[in-house]
Structure formats: C-alpha cells, structure tokens
C-alpha cells in the first residue's frame, strides 16, 4: 500500500470520518437542524426565553400594583400607528386619552380618545427601577414621555397587561424549570434504583409508581395547594407550588429511566466494567448515565409544557400563584365574568402567548426526540 493511496482514501473518507468521530451531541444537532418545524420552534423558544429574562427591560412598566395606571382601568389596548387623517410620521404615535366625569356621562368615569393629540413613542426611556443580574437599571426599551402606553390594554386595577404578560412568561418558565428539576432528580434516583437492581426492589417500586400514576394529578394537587397557609408570601407560595409540581411529575420520567436501565444493564460493556471490579456507583455514573443522557434531555423538554400547564391551571382557579407574582394562570383569573367576556376581551391576549410557548416546547421536544433516536436515519 503506497502513501498516496492512503492519502486519497483519507480525502474520500473525510466526510465519513467526520460522521463516525462525531460526538453524540454533534450527531443530534445535525439531525435536529434538518427539521424545519423543530428549528422554528427552537427559535421561537429562544426568543420567548430571552424576552422572559429581559422582561423588565422590554416592557415599559412595573407589572405589580406599583406600575399601575390609575386613570385607565380596564383600558383598551393603545396601538401605536404611523398614519392618521392628519398625515403620517416616521415615529409611531398613540392618541392622548381624556378621562372625565360629568352630568353628560351620567357621573361615571368615561375615557375618550382625543385623536387630535399625538403622543410619540420614545425608545430607551427612563422609567421605574428594576433589578436585573443583581444590578439596578431604569431604562426601558420603549415608552412615552407623558402618560402611559398600553399595547395590550390594562386590567381592572390599571396594571399594564403587556408588561404582565412578559413577566408571566418568566415566572412560568421558572416554575417549570424548578418543577422539572425536582421531578428529574426524583425520577433519576427512583427509576435508577428500580432499573439497576431489578428483582423484588423493582417490583415494589413499580407498584408504588403505578399507584401514584393512577391518582389524577391536578385534583390531588388542588388538595395540597389549598392547604397553603394564607400567611405565606408570594415567593414562598411560588417555591412550594414548584416543589409540589416536581413531586407529582416524577413517575412518568422514572418509568422511562427504569426501562432504559433495564435494557442497558445487561449490555456487555456493563458486564466488562463489573468484571474489572467497578462499583455500582461507578458503573451508573460513568457507563450507564452517559448512555442515555440524550433521552433524558428529550424527556425533560417534553415534560416541561405539562409543568407549565399544571401551574397555569392551578393559578387559574386561584390555588396556585397569587398577586403580585405574575404568571399566565394568575392573569387569567376572573376572566370568566360576563363583564370581561363582553367588554374586555384583551384580557385573553396572554392565552396566545401561552399557546405559542407550549407549542414551541412541543415542537422542540418532538424534534429532539427524533434527532436523539440513533436509528432515526436508518428507518427511512
């Protein structure tokens, strides 16, 4: 065999080599990139996560009662526009609002739109202070000099729904993350013990897991959440709710971990490690865990929307988070009244964000699942 031959072969093989030497992560990423829906989902998700993280900067007002606009309760959205009857401007503007109460309005407060007065949208305005990354800022992406701008309208106390929505995304993601993390740790420990030891340990653990799985989660959750003392602060409730979510979410994950371990532990590489004298802990950490990290990540992403969903459902009925913590469920409280249904439909705008958020997670989760499946390519 001559040198040139080897050289040619190397050139021919370089593409294949890249494939064969690629790490698991690189392979998954290559397959993931091919899926259009999953990529769109991923971008939307990144966008939503970023907008959740930078919510205080992106939104003009404080989402709590401190940032309320007391002259504009249940106010309709004020949509910035470029053109009107009086001509166009490059800088978007909104109309001024006038609030009055007189004999003409039957002594009720009535807000009228003054189409003659233009208020121009400013960028990087200074407003309420907020904390981000342990520093204090007061610059907001946009706002107006004098008065308020409410892209999604205001609620019954005059809080800006746009600001609340973005903060709510942040909260929902945080609750989901903590919940998923706790569920993950529990699932790993319980499923790990069950799958690695097998036998009667496995049978008993499986029985308990199945029993937990038969209990409808949300009614049980309601039973637990209802007993949170009223004296707890919003933050304590937040952590408690996340923890319960985690405690209820583990069985499905644990089952997957167990099934995977049961099939993997009889593989020859495990036997080889055991023959070399490796301890159980070492085998689990160094050999078994890496063999299914990708599956676990996928499962975590897939179980995320369920967490967000449960939190929203609970907060919606008033057993989950409460003011001043904003979450999507908290924002949907009290929307079933006829008044809101008939007159203040902008209360429902956060629902759109909720749907987009869950959809993005589902698309990414599905894409990841297909990408992490090593036989996905050979099937077709």
């Amino acid at each position: 065999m001559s040198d040139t031959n080897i050289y040619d072969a190397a050139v021919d093989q370089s593409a294949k080599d890249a494939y064969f030497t690629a790490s698991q992560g690189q392979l998954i990423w290559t397959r993931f990139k091919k899926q259009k829906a999953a990529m769109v989902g991923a971008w939307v998700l990144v966008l939503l996560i970023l907008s959740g993280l930078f919510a205080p900067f992106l939104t003009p007002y404080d989402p709590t009662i401190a940032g309320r606009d007391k002259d504009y309760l249940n106010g309709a959205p004020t949509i910035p526009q470029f053109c009107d009857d009086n001509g166009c401007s490059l800088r978007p503007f909104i109309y001024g609002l006038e609030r009055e109460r007189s004999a003409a309005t039957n002594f009720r407060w009535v807000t009228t739109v003054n189409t003659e007065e233009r208020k121009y949208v400013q960028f990087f305005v200074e407003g309420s202070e907020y904390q981000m990354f342990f520093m204090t800022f007061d610059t907001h992406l946009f706002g107006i000099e004098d008065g308020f701008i409410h892209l999604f309208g205001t609620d019954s106390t005059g809080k800006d729904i746009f600001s609340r929505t973005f903060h709510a995304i942040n909260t929902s993601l945080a609750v989901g993350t903590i919940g998923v993390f706790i569920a993950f740790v529990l699932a790993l420990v319980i499923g790990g013990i069950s799958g690695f030891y097998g036998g009667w340990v496995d049978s008993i653990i499986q029985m308990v897991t199945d029993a937990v799985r038969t209990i409808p989660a949300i009614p049980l959750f309601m039973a637990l959440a209802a007993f949170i003392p009223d004296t707890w602060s919003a933050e304590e409730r937040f952590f408690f709710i996340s923890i319960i979510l985690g405690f209820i979410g583990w069985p499905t994950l644990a089952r997957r971990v167990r099934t995977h371990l049961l099939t993997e532990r009889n593989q020859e590489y495990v036997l080889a490690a055991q023959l070399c004298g490796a301890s159980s802990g070492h085998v689990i950490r160094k050999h078994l865990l890496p063999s299914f990290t990708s599956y676990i990540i996928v499962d975590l992403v897939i179980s995320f929307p369920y967490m967000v969903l449960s939190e929203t459902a609970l907060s919606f009925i008033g057993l989950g988070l409460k003011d001043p913590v904003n979450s999507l469920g908290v924002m949907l409280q009290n929307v079933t009244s006829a008044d809101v249904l008939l007159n203040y439909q902008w209360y429902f705008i956060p629902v759109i964000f909720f749907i987009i958020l869950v959809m993005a997670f589902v698309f990414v989760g599905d894409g990841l699942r297909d990408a992490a499946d090593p036989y996905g390519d050979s099937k077709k």
Partner: protein
Amino acid sequence: MVQFLRFAGIRATLAFITLCLVSFIVFSLMELVPGDCAERYLAFKNSQGAQISIADIEAERVRLGLDRPFFERWVKWIFNAFQGEFGDSCILRLDINQLLGQKVWLSIGICLGSLLLAYAIAVPVGIIAATSRNPFLNNGLRLVSYLGLALPNFLLALMIMLFSTMVFGNSLTGLFSPEYRDAPWDWPKIKDFLGHVWLPVFILGWSATAFAIQTVRALMSDEIGKLYVTAAAARGVAGRQLLMRYPARHALSPIVNSLGFDLNRIFNELPIVALILTLTEAGSLLIEALARSNDQQLAGAIIFFLTGSIIAINFITDIVLAIVDPRIRRSILG
C-alpha cells in the same frame, strides 16, 4: 375457564392492592396538611360566635376518633370506604354520600362520555390518517394533536365561552336549565340535560381526542408496513376489509390499554372545566371542598372515587383484552 378465572382473580387482587396503596397515599397526604377536622369544625363554630377552648377541641378529637393512631384510622377509613361510607364532611357536618349523591355518578358519566367520544372520533380518523398520503390532512391532524396540549381543555372552554358570548350572547354554561335543577328525573329533564351536556363532554374529550388520534395513527402506520399485511394484500384482501381484519386488530390492544390513563387525563381537567362552565357536579364540589372550606374528609372521598374509577377501568380493560386479544388469551390459558 379455570385459568381465566384465576387470571381475573389475580388482576382483581392487584387492582385491590393498588386501590389500598392509593388510598394510603391520599389518606396520608390529607393527614399531612396542617390542622385536622376537629380544629376546622370548631374554628368554623368560633367564627359563628361560639366560645371555644382547647378542651373542646380535644373532646371533639376524641368524638371523631382523631386521637387514635394513624394506621388504625387509615384501616378504618379504607374499610368504611369499601362499604361506601365516607363519614361526615368536616365542616358541613353532612353525610358525604348525601352531599355527593348523584353528583359523583353524573361526573363519572360525563367523563366516560368524553372518553367514548374521544375514541369514537380518534379511531376512524387515526386509521384514515395512517392510510392517507394526503399531506394536507396529515399536517392538519398533527396540528390538532399539538393543539390538544397547547390549548388544554380549560383554555378551550374559556375560548368557547368568549366566542359564544361575543357571537350568540349566551355563555352556554350549566348542566340544567334553572327550572329543572331540582326536578326529579323524567323525560323533559333528560332532554334538557342532553341539550346542555354535549359541550362539557366535547371540551373534556378534546385533549384526549387529540392524543388518541396521534396514538392510533402511530400504531396503525407501524402495523401497516408489516409483512403480514403485505401477505394479506397479496392474497387479494383489499380496502377496508384489509385494514379492519389485519393491522387494526393488532393496533387495538395498546389502545385499549391506554384507556385508564386517558380517563386520568380527563379527570385531571374536570374540576377546572367544571368551574369555568359552572357545572354543579363533583368536580366543582372538589374545588368548593378545597379552596373555600379546606374540607379534607370530603376531598379525600372525591379523590378516592376518581382514582377508584380509573383502577376499575384498568381492571376492565385488562379483562376485556384477555377475552378479545388471542395472544393474551393464549398466554393465560398456557
């Protein structure tokens, strides 16, 4: 036959053990929450103006048997529960059976109706989707199944309410018209009930339908590619007969198996949907019991009922599968 009875017996025992285990979990959780029945009742009396001392609370505890050890009370509770006795509600001091009454059966009925509807839609649609090459249909169904998660039942209920209020000026809530609420069951009441119940049944079945379509489709498309289907087609079986007699029968058993968990999913959302649509059956009673009065006795009974019906469904599906599926039948009969 003997083997079959033995199989049924083993399954029944397993279901029973699961039920005991579940009741233990539920009972302990109800115990873990701060405060007990005696305190709650007397706190309630106190709010009505009566003077309450520590001794009164202790006396009430003894009267309710709350001074007994935890395990003993659980055994007593589960023993009574199997006889259909759940004792008195903590706060209302009414017999729980009386309080729940037909509400439990009504809500379990509604949920079973949703489950039936879900599969009545999902099985044919899933089979069509698996055989169809129409990309429009397939993508549409994929979207629907994603929406089943992204637009959960309670949000769907909200959206339908918003829509119906805006368009028809009627929010379509409740289970009965006011004049029938307390009337005895007769034909006009049943008609009125059916006129109201379709919406909750549809809304509760929505997520389950979306998921079931996905499952049926996946199972069917797995089976359709298999060799026995090709062999059958080569023998000249075609069209609907081919689908129904070969792959559909194979795909059946995992679907029947998942019924219990679908029921679980429906129960999950029952209380919230019930609250939104102001249905006055067990679901909203649960919220009432929990959110308003912290009534652990009532909450425990309701959760026990819900879980019990899921376990019952699981047991029935096991038995039905053993009868219907020849593979399982043969493995039992040896």
